[in-house]
């Protein structure tokens, strides 16, 4: 059906067009801008709901446009794509609400929301890309759309962070492009296919294919913040809180991790990647990233920096899961894509609330904040517990499947990495929780912008998003076994990937 | 050697001479003269080489007429620019530093 093939581009356009209009809106048109934002977000959600139903029933949504001979722009809403699309659309909706509250009265909002929408457009495109070309197009668009958000404040620090961000991501993009073209000249196709398409080339090109794998992983690894390519991420923390939330939970970092998933499963094919012997080195890199990120997080006093290093560590769980050969490991890695997103966005919303309401930027300033902001702190606590991996929260489900997957793949040492990392997680999250709830308030808050009014500890647009996402982090863990839960959906993906 | 070929050979020499002059002459007037020598060389080759067999060929003759008018036009424009430059900067030479975007003496007023 024609309409079905148009749905993927419509999902992309549902944030692109409002973004474009918003960009040119006058700064004072607050209501129109908000309406456009919300209409876009809701339209996207509705389209996605329809497509989810279709994909579940084996319906295909594929859009194809020839850019150059041999170079097609393909948007394909397969099960894996829908997982990421749904995640980003839902979290975008909440982040938009949050950003409207967060930026109330701030300058340059048209520019902000314009690029904000472009950013989600790019993410959705990355998710639905049907081949490496399309992936690359949206991957680079994502870089360009996020840069203005990172430097939004215009301070020298922000500009420096932006420069660093560009240097890393554009460099990564260039490497990725070389990898893609090299692969294309070798294989004649870079389409994403279940089970990969390179096995047919066989061992004759093994050496070249290993080099290409390195290029591709290095290219997407920059955004996924794999050590040693992670240097930009902690610096990018100067961005406004909603941007950090989006960067860490939905857009940039996730696009990188998602790229690794696509390359391993649908370009090389996990079986062929195993044969080439490229998975094990990748698992070392992932493990190193997990531990290094956690260790660095321990040392940070700045709350957002601590969360940033935590992201470096947590995203590599996804990469680690991918390298564990076998369906269980796949489930663990891919489902963490969703789980980490929900938990991390909660943490950043909360951090933003502390900063925006009380002027708290450092862990050492958080003593007794639980009594002043109970809802926010409760959400923070839930998400932190999830990150550590306490049952029955989302993070536990991920780690459980990762552990089982490691055993299945015969890589027992990974269990050790997981346990050590959980300990480190606890070591950098629990002190925060302890301070917030159990220590008395130490003097005045650094800078109280928003006064408590009755039971409302801060603006309701700031409060609702973290509460919802924290509840979601609990729900996806509690109801993991229910149909249409992320876990259930990921199991569907894994079945299709490993189907003979 | 026919007369036509002789013209052509002389033309080749003039062309090379003009080229050298265009590069080496420091003053603009010298460069403009050199360009005219270079052009004349090309015209001589055009007419001479075509008529090396002895039969006159009206086509290159017409082309050279066209070429001469073009050269006159170019020379006139070059002279006018030289005069204008001399009025503005006091010398009929190209400033050495221009390729490196000198600071605008009249302040940062753009174009």
């Amino acid at each position: 059906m024609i309409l079905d093939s148009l749905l993927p581009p419509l999902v992309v356009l549902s944030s692109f067009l409002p973004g474009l209009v918003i960009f040119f809106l006058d700064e004072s048109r607050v209501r129109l801008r908000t309406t456009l934002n919300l209409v876009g977000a809701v339209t996207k959600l509705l389209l996605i709901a329809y497509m989810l139903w279709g994909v579940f029933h084996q319906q295909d949504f594929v859009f194809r446009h020839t850019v150059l001979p041999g170079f097609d722009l393909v948007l394909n809403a397969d099960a894996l794509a829908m997982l990421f699309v749904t995640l980003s659309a839902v979290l975008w909706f909440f982040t938009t609400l949050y950003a409207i509250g967060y930026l109330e009265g701030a300058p340059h909002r048209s520019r902000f929301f314009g690029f904000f929408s472009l950013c989600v457009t790019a993410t959705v495109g990355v998710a639905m890309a049907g081949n490496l070309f399309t992936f690359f197009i949206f991957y680079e668009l994502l870089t360009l759309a996020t840069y203005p958000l990172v430097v939004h404040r215009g301070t020298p620090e922000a500009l420096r962070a932006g420069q660093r961000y560009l240097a890393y991501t554009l460099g990564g993009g260039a490497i990725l492009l070389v990898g893609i073209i090299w692969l294309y000249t070798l294989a004649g196709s870079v389409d994403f296919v279940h089970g990969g398409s390179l096995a047919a080339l066989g061992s004759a090109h093994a050496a070249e294919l290993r080099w290409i794998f390195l290029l591709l992983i290095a290219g997407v690894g920059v955004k996924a913040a794999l050590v040693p390519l992670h240097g930009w991420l902690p610096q990018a923390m100067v961005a406004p809180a909603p941007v950090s939330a989006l960067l860490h939970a939905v857009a940039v970092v996730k696009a990188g991790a998602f790229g690794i998933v696509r390359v391993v499963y649908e370009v090389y094919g996990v079986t062929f990647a195993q044969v080439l012997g490229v998975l094990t080195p990748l698992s070392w890199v992932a493990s190193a990233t997990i531990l290094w990120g956690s260790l660095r997080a321990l040392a940070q006093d700045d709350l957002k920096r601590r969360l940033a290093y935590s992201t470096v560590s947590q995203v590599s769980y996804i990469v680690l899961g991918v390298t564990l050969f076998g369906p269980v490991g796949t489930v663990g890695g891919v489902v963490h894509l969703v789980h980490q997103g929900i938990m991390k966005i909660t943490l950043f919303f909360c951090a933003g609330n502390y900063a925006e309401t009380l002027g708290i930027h450092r862990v050492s300033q958080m003593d007794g904040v639980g009594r002043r902001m109970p809802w926010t702190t409760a959400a923070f606590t839930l998400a932190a517990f999830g990150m550590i991996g306490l049952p029955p929260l989302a993070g536990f489900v991920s780690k459980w499947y990762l552990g089982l997957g490691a055993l299945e793949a015969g890589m027992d040492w990974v269990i050790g990495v997981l346990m050590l990392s959980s300990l480190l997680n606890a070591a950098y999250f629990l002190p925060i929780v302890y301070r917030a709830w159990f220590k008395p308030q130490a003097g005045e808050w650094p800078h109280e912008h928003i006064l408590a009014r009755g039971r409302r500890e801060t603006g309701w647009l700031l409060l609702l998003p973290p509460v919802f996402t924290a509840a979601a982090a609990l729900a996806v863990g509690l109801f993991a076994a229910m149909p249409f839960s992320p876990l259930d959906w990921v199991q569907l993906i894994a079945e299709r990937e490993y189907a003979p | 050697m026919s007369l036509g070929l002789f013209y052509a050979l002389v033309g080749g020499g003039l062309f090379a001479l003009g080229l050298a002059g265009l590069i080496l002459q420091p003053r603009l007037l010298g460069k403009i003269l050199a360009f005219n020598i270079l052009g004349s060389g090309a015209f001589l080759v055009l007419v001479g080489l075509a008529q090396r067999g002895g039969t006159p060929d009206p086509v290159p003759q017409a082309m050279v007429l066209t070429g001469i008018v073009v050269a006159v036009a170019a020379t006139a424009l070059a002279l006018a620019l030289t005069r204008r430059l001399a009025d503005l900067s006091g010398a009929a030479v190209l400033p050495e530093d221009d390729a490196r975007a000198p600071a605008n003496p009249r302040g940062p007023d753009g174009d």
Partner: protein
Amino acid sequence: MAIESVAPLPWLVLLPLAWATLSFLLGPSRGAGIAIVGLLLQAGLVLLLAWQLTTMGTQHHAVGGWGAPLGIDLVADGLSVVMLLMTAAVALPVAIYARAWFVAKPAGAAWFWPLSGFLVAALNGLFLSADLFNIYVTLELLGLAAVGLTAATGERRAVAAAMRYLLATLLGSGAYLMGVALVYGTYGSVSLAVLGGLVESLPVVMLAAGLMVAGMLLKTALFPLHFWLPPAHGGAATPVSALLSALVIKASFYLALRLWFGVFEPLAAVSAAQVLGALGAAAVFWGSVQALLQARLKMLVAYSTVAQVGYLFLVFPLATGTPAEAAAGAWQGGVLQAVAHALAKAAMFAAAGAMILGAGSDRIDRLGGVGARLPLALFAFGLAGIVLMGLPPTGGFATKWLLLMAALETGQWWWAAVLVGGGLLAAAYVFRVLLAAFAPVPEQGRVTGVARSLEWTAFALATAGVLLGLFAAHVVTLLDVGA
């Protein structure tokens, strides 16, 4: 009259000549309106021609009814039509831009319209001509019009730049004319169609080809023959800069391409092609680094042209003596680069002009506040920059894609390194400007607003540069007609 019977070829030359003359008759600073109408008609004619080409193949017109070799033939194949489309697509927005520009800054306005009319006529004539000597006349028409436009502000810097430009362009066409003389002497004809079957590897023809191509390198400002370009393109009035950088240098590149892969194909040597590629690579790096070092916005954009010209010449090593498929891809990539750069560079100059006008200075470190006051111009600048960086999904990316493919397919990975590295360098100098424009300003209201059409035309050009990437397949199809 049926639309099939309209012959666009002669009209594409006559129309701009007519409006140029008319605006001259109207007097100084007059004629913007008829120019815009004329360019609109021209755009329609080119589209009609493109349609004729896809349905009926290569189009011919024998001027005077004689036919080659006695008369002069106009021929429109895929390459010509893509170049004509590029000319129309750039000239029309730039005309609209110029109309508003000269209201704000009258310097150089007096004879802009007739001169630019002749310039457009020369471009169209050159792209259509199938006669070596006639091409020489169009080259001179083009060169003198461009020099006149460069000098038109009457300022010392501009006049010096124009003088330098004039000498370079005259030397270039002089070398070309010498080549024509040798070719006519050898074969007795200057018709490309006639020569196509005759040219063989004689010393005199090699010499002719060498002189003609060298002349074109000088006119295209390929490193190290680029010395004249930055002051001319950076010093002219902004609408002129846009025309020069976007279109004028493309004419000589087109001619180099036409000759090298056309009549002189039997002589094309791999070693010479590698030299051209090496000069191109040097241009990419030298131009980019110089752009990074400039203190003035328009000089930065001009040096960016030096760099971008380098990419054009990668076509030669990638399409000379390489397998047919890779060569075709490289050739398409080269032509697309010419078009993508035309759109992006016109947009970039237009946006830069608007920003300079708003900021009241062309120093890059004085651009602070432009981002807040002129977001559309800055956005256009950024978009154009993205095209030049070769990021997807723009026309610059389609170019880079095709050239990279050809480089890797033919095992010439060193050109791939140039393409990738050049893109990153472009990013460095483009973001340098964006960074400066994003910087907050202490003095409120230092940046003033500019006419809306200045910003919109820049934006339209940049958008066209982006869309070119999404519809590159159409251009490539058109390009294949008669190739």
